[in-house]
């Protein structure tokens, strides 16, 4: 009986699978499928796990999810899911799921040194409020902070952004996307004047050359990888290049694998630019019509603290590079200076400033990047001959330059988590623009994202410390005024001072300038580099940390209060993926126990405060802006009263349950019988997700960021839409007249982004004419030099450590790692090392070793085999391994422009434990 049922289910599933793959299905199997599913309710949703944004279908039965499948109608994944797809239906049902608030108590009262004890929501909010008021009274808007997320739904991010910026008048809100996307954003702004890619995933099927820059797509973006391998296998002429610092799975199908040293991607791209010029391959009509050349200062530091006051003694020599850098031979050549010159880092305060230069200047900039120079600098595998490596670089340039080839460049963390992340992003556009291979089907530099809504929530909603929705910036008075208009709040409510970025919030906790911090959908104490500092700051300083979580991760453990959150399909939501596609879903199942959506938590917290708590004058040390008294936010209460507000109005009423929003009623036919636990709990008859969508839509309308109506995304036949959605039509390629209605008729290509489009003029050495000159409609081709990593292997710490996210290691399977006894005996996490490096240290596979940097050490097991083949001199340890907390070891440098951390390189030593 059981067997036959199993066989029945199997043939039904095989039938669905064959249908998606395009193989014929037997009638019997099709009938089995229909029978099995007859009581299920299928609904569309989006995968929880990465920025690819695959569509899925979810089957529910009696309040639980029973099956999931890749959505055959989703253009992104066409019915397929990667391995993570298994967990979409399962993640909600873990045994250690948090289902009630937990607070550290001693004798029934909050105590930082107390143990976690279950409390009611009421008690939780009471203490949160008490602590908030204490900090706000003492330190004002600068004293509180929010760690947000690229995994927030769009609606959640929107609401918290508004609560912090309009309500609390604090810009100390920054998402974990800072550590995954910020460099991409900074380059989109500086090059195009607007965020997010021109192209879309269909570029894969239109192109014949795909270049992966430090992006191990086989593991990181498996579904896109399937599309790439399909394209490669079906087209003999198609070429795939994998540039990487060690051999990984993506090399399996690559026609050309280039292993390079950390940071030398900067030099390799300049070599390509130099070749384009040397071979007279610059697409002159394209460049003259659509581009200008630009550069900026080189002496911008490494995004560390300016002082060594908080550095451990061993860290001080690395920290000193923030102040002064002694040029090595390579940097000296690359920057046309002298080896051994000590360069004071004078532009750390304004590293992003830049100016126009001439083509001749640009040419002079890339001139030192000859094949000989770059090959010698960049060759990453000591066992590879220089001639072979040179040959590979030449082939790479050939592929880019070949006029008959279309080229797409892909990258993710390899470029973004980089001490010069913004520069290296800009350089990728540099080559595509020089060749005119940009913003056309199959041609373009394509920045991918890691998190499911890094684009939709973090970037588009602007949940960063310097941003507002739809490409608006905090320091820009017009952008603030527009935002105040849409939000119907008095002029000058918004704080003009950029808040603390992610790393800085952690530093602020360490030095006591922030004393109240809330975390939603992310895990700063696990994921941020140089973690010993931040854990000590959280546990040993006088502060209050709230973590909204579904499972007890490291951040929950270091918190003072844990709030149980509803997970993905337990709430209504929407995500935006890496190709500008916005997708939304309905609540499928109820959250367990006392777990509640983050949006509900935000709204309930807002009920506890009144306008008079914030909209009077506030002290903001360091505030300096036109129209504001120094260090002060003005009292806007009188203006607020003119707008009809009362000082006694709660933030909930003033910002969220506004008269307009209350008109957006729950229940709503769009729900098609699905519940909304947040609307139900609020109980005042409105539909917050839909109301916020309507509010949010205004920001992008007519600004190149148009979104469709809420109900459209929920319509049966829609599988997300790529913004801007103009007259109901999505835009496939931006800046291209054929596809994008924002391009002026007859212009062909027009880079119409508005930010940073009037800049000074100068040469490679600096500004010569400070008067801003307009470059409306054009993109910038930047010259950016090679810069050496802040920390490099030396006599004491003689290996590179690279970290990353996913790694296939089935030797140490998930199962075994769940058995506690085994776990303690042999930590499951491993460090990949070249066999020769292991041997030189007297180590063999499976040995336990310490891996130690200037900042900390952890114990790991040695791995010399596997799919990731290390080059000599580099070791690799994955991030998200519960056995090894590698962020104790990593270095917290950032790209000084984007403030994104560089996890990819620091110096370590390895010895037997």
């Amino acid at each position, binding site marked *: 009986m059981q067997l036959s049922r*199993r066989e029945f*289910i*199997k043939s039904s*599933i*095989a039938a*669905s*699978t*064959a249908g998606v*793959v*395009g*193989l*014929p299905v037997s009638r019997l199997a099709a009938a089995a499928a229909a029978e099995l599913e007859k009581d299920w309710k299928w609904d569309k949703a989006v995968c929880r*796990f*990465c920025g690819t944004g695959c569509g899925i279908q979810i089957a529910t039965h009696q309040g639980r999810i*029973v*099956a999931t*499948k*890749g959505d055959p109608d989703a253009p992104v994944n066409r*019915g*397929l*899911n*990667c*391995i*993570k797809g*298994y967990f979409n239906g399962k993640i909600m*049902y873990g*045994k250690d799921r948090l289902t009630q608030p937990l607070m550290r108590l001693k004798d029934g009262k909050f105590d930082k040194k107390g143990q976690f004890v279950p409390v009611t929501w009421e008690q939780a909010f009471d203490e949160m409020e008490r602590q908030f008021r204490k900090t706000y009274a003492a330190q004002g808007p600068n004293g509180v902070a929010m760690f947000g997320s690229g*995994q927030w739904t769009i609606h959640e991010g929107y609401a918290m952004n508004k609560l912090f910026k309009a309500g609390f008048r604090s810009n100390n809100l920054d998402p974990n996307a800072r550590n995954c996307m910020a460099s991409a954003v900074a380059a989109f702004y500086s090059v195009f004047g607007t965020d997010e890619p021109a192209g879309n995933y269909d570029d894969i099927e239109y192109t014949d050359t795909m270049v992966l820059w430090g992006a191990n797509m086989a593991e*990181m973006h498996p*579904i896109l990888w*399937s599309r790439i*391998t399909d394209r490669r*296998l079906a087209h003999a002429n198609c070429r795939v290049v994998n540039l990487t610092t060690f051999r990984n799975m993506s090399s*399996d199908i690559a026609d050309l694998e280039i292993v390079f040293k950390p940071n030398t991607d900067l030099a390799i791209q300049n070599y390509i630019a130099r070749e384009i010029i040397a071979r007279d391959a610059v697409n002159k009509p394209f460049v003259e019509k659509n581009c200008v050349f630009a550069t900026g200062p080189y002496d911008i530091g490494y995004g560390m603290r300016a002082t060594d006051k908080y550095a451990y003694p061993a860290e001080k020599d690395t920290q000193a590079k923030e102040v002064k850098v002694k040029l090595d031979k390579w940097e000296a050549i690359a920057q046309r200076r002298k080896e051994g010159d000590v360069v004071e880092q004078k532009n750390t305060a304004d590293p992003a400033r830049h100016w126009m230069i001439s083509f001749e200047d640009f040419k002079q900039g890339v001139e030192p990047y000859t094949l000989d120079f770059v090959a010698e600098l960049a060759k990453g595998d000591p066992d590879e001959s220089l001639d072979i490596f040179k040959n590979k670089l030449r082939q790479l340039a050939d592929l880019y330059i070949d006029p008959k080839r279309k080229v797409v460049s892909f990258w993710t963390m390899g470029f973004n988590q980089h001490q010069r992340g913004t520069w290296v992003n800009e350089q990728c556009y540099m080559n595509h623009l020089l060749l005119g291979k940009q913003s056309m089907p199959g041609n373009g530099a394509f920045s991918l994202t890691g998190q499911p809504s890094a684009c939709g929530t973090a970037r588009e909603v602007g949940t960063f410390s310097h941003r507002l929705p739809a490409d608006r910036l905090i320091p820009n008075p017009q952008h603030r005024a527009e935002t105040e208009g849409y939000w119907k709040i008095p002029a000058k409510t918004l704080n003009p001072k950029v808040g603390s970025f992610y790393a800085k919030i952690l530093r602020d906790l360490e030095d006591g300038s922030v004393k109240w911090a809330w975390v939603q*959908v*992310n895990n700063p104490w*696990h994921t941020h580099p140089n973690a010993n500092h931040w854990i000590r700051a959280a546990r040993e300083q006088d502060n209050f940390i709230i973590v909204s979580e579904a*499972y007890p*991760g*490291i951040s929950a*453990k270091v918190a003072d209060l844990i709030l149980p959150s509803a997970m993905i399909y337990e709430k209504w939501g929407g995500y935006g993926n890496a190709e500008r596609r916005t997708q939304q879903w309905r609540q499928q199942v109820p959250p367990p126990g006392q777990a509640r959506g983050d949006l509900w938590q935000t709204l309930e917290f807002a009920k506890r405060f009144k306008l008079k708590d914030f909209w009077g004058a506030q002290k903001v040390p360091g505030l300096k802006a036109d129209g504001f008294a120094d260090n002060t936010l003005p009292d806007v209460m009188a203006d607020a009263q003119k707008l009809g507000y009362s000082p006694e109005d709660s933030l909930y009423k003033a910002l969220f349950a506004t008269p307009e929003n209350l008109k957006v009623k729950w229940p709503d036919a769009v729900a098609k019988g699905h519940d909304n636990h947040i609307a139900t709990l609020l109980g005042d008859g409105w539909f917050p997700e839909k109301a916020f969508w309507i509010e949010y839509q205004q920001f992008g309308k007519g600004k190149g960021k148009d979104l469709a109506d809420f109900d459209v995304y929920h319509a049966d036949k829609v599988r997300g839409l790529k913004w801007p959605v103009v007259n109901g039509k999505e835009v496939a390629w931006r800046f291209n007249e054929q596809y994008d209605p924002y391009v002026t008729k007859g212009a062909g290509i027009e880079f119409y982004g508005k930010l940073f489009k009037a800049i000074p003029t100068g040469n490679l050495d600096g500004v010569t004419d400070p008067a801003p000159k307009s470059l409306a409609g054009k993109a910038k081709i930047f010259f950016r030099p090679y810069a050496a990593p802040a920390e490099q292997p030396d006599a004491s710490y003689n290996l590179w450590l690279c970290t990353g*996210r*996913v*790694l*296939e*290691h*089935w030797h140490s399977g*998930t*199962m075994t790692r*769940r058995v506690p006894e085994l*776990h303690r005996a042999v930590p499951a996490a491993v460090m990949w090392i070249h066999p020769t490096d292991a041997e030189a240290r007297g180590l063999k596979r499976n040995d336990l070793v310490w891996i130690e940097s200037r900042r900390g050490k*952890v*114990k790991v097991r040695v791995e010399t085999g596997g*799919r990731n083949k290390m080059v000599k001199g580099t070791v690799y340890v*994955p991030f*998200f*391994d*519960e*056995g090894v*907390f590698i962020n104790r070891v990593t270095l917290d440098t950032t790209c000084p422009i984007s403030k994104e951390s560089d996890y990819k390189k620091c110096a370590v030593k390895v010895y037997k434990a």
Partner: protein
Amino acid sequence: MNISGISVSTRPEWVESVAQSLSAIKGVEVHAADVRAGKLVVTLEAPTVSAEVEGFKRIRALPHVVAADLVQHYFEEDGEIIHAIPDDLDTLEGVSVPDALKDH
């Protein structure tokens, strides 16, 4: 009980050999193959999600398999303890606390 439908891609010349190695994996059944397209349709059955993931990884690691993608996943109450998503699956959420942290 967990049963998944998986699409496996390989080069056309390897379809037959990949089909053989797939069938040798416990819980795997090959239901259909298209040599020209280099595609195979398989089901994978395992008692728990973790075992299911293990099986999937095994498929992906087979020689000549260039891609393996999940199409449908069916599961019945299996009493399994999923502490969270396994950490090697690239997520920022739901990791349990490493021993290394406990001395703090």
